[in-house]
């Protein structure tokens, strides 16, 4: 198994609070890896480190063998051109139409003719099932459609690596299943390496080839779906069997969890 991403000894802090506590793992190429964990355990924080939005307090993040923690902004931008990201709330630019949103990475990073860009935008939107919505603004779309549009933008430059932050959060089960299907299609047809951060079990069992489980800033599991099902780790069993947990948070932590995500 060849690795697309190799993380070693990653420590992440917000101020004095340690969110990721010295974690190491790898993400295999050409597969869908799901990073699983409860709310507030640091999934988004980890994702932001993987895409170079946050610099690690300590540790290495190697993408295609290059430690992105040590790159400067220009070098990082080169790496980012090979990445696509679908953010939790889609993060479409509200001042632009859907077509302009999808065209944005192409206009910024390629010298394609405007007509070519138009055609490619239509292809991407067609792929995510949004043909005909080119001239709509993000505020005119439903949550599921926004995510699809965000996905179209994420794959605009045919990235090698595609990241999803909670793709099915806030969506009804049917829409969420549709998005899972798209994720499967992208892996099967385009051979992309896909990294999905989520806490939704049903979609894990649909899309995952490889699972990494995060709990309170530490990795408690990494392996295949079968290994996950067979695990006897108490926290994993609790998660899989949806058992409630005893409140173990300190009041400040609890406040942060209910205040943030």
């Amino acid at each position, binding site marked *: 198994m060849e690795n697309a991403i190799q993380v070693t000894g990653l420590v992440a802090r917000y101020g004095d609070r340690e969110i990721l506590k010295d974690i190491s793992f790898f993400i295999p190429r050409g597969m869908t890896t799901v990073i699983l964990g409860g709310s507030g355990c640091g999934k988004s924080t980890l994702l932001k480190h993987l895409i170079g939005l946050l610099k690690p307090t300590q540790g290495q993040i190697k993408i295609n063998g290059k430690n992105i923690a040590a790159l400067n902004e220009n070098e990082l931008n080169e790496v*980012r051109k090979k990445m696509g990201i679908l953010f939790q709330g889609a993060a479409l630019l*509200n001042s632009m139409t859907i077509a302009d949103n999808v065209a944005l990475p192409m206009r910024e990073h390629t010298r394609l003719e405007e007509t070519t860009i138009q055609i490619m935008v239509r292809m991407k939107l067609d792929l995510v099932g949004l043909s005909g919505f080119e001239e709509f603004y993000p505020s005119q779309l439903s949550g599921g459609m926004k995510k699809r549009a965000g996905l179209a933008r994420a794959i605009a430059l045919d990235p090698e690596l595609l990241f999803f932050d909670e793709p099915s959060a806030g969506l009804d089960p049917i829409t969420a299943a549709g998005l899972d299907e798209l994720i499967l299609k992208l892996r099967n047809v385009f051979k992309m390496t896909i990294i999905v951060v989520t806490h939704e079990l049903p979609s894990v069992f649909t899309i995952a080839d490889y699972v990494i489980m995060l709990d309170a800033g530490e990795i408690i599991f990494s392996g295949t779906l079968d290994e996950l099902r067979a695990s006897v780790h108490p926290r994993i069993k609790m998660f899989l069997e949806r058992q409630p947990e005893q409140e173990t948070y300190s009041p400040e932590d609890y406040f942060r969890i209910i205040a943030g995500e």
Partner: protein
Amino acid sequence: MPSTAENILNSAVRKARSISRDIHDASKIINDIFFWSFISPLKGKPLRFRASINEMVKAGYNSVPIVAVISFFIGIILAFQAAYQLKRVGALIYVANLVGVSITRELGPIITAIIVSGRSGSAFAAEIGSMKAAEEVDALISMGINPVRFIVVPKLIALMVMVPALTIFSDFIGILGGFVLSVTILEIHPVNYFLQTVNALLVKDVMTGLIKAWAFGIVITTVGAYQGFKVTGGAEEVGRRTTAAVVASIFLVIVFDLFFTTMFYYFT
């Protein structure tokens, strides 16, 4: 229980840390704005002209009515106040000088800047703040697009053009206000008033006003962007930052005005 002295010391340390972080953030944003506005275009990274035009319409063209009305009223008020004093010494015609010079040198630029602070400074902070809260700024960075270049530079170009342009307009309307009052209520002959104004105004007066206006445009954009990018939480923080942006930009506009006025007093 920590002692009171310890408490005070702790909070002082925390305060100092937060101030030094603010200064660091502010200098970083100023640095970025100048790099992406003036240096990187020289290296062949094009500016976003269409977006700049859009911003000019929003910040400039749409402020024309309010600038017109306020400048006209201020012109009238100024003429009244001048007449109140000048009438006693029988030098009513000098209303034209006072209105012309104080509008072009001072009131035109400052009225315009305050209106633009209220309209555009707050809008910039709100727009950037909600983009930050909705992860749109993160999305831009992750697409390899610098958010300062993408969001702030078009606004800066717009205000560097539009604040001086609105100031010229405000000067004109303000003087017109003074003129209307003078030829009606003060019964000064229109031709006399006109000639007096033309004689009183120097190119220098108008130019110093425009230099100020240009600087105010930079101040307003920078403050709005700074407050917007400071947002880390949700909607209620956007509201707070928006208010802070207006207050801070009006304050800084006045500070810069004081600075420029002092400079012009000694060096022109």
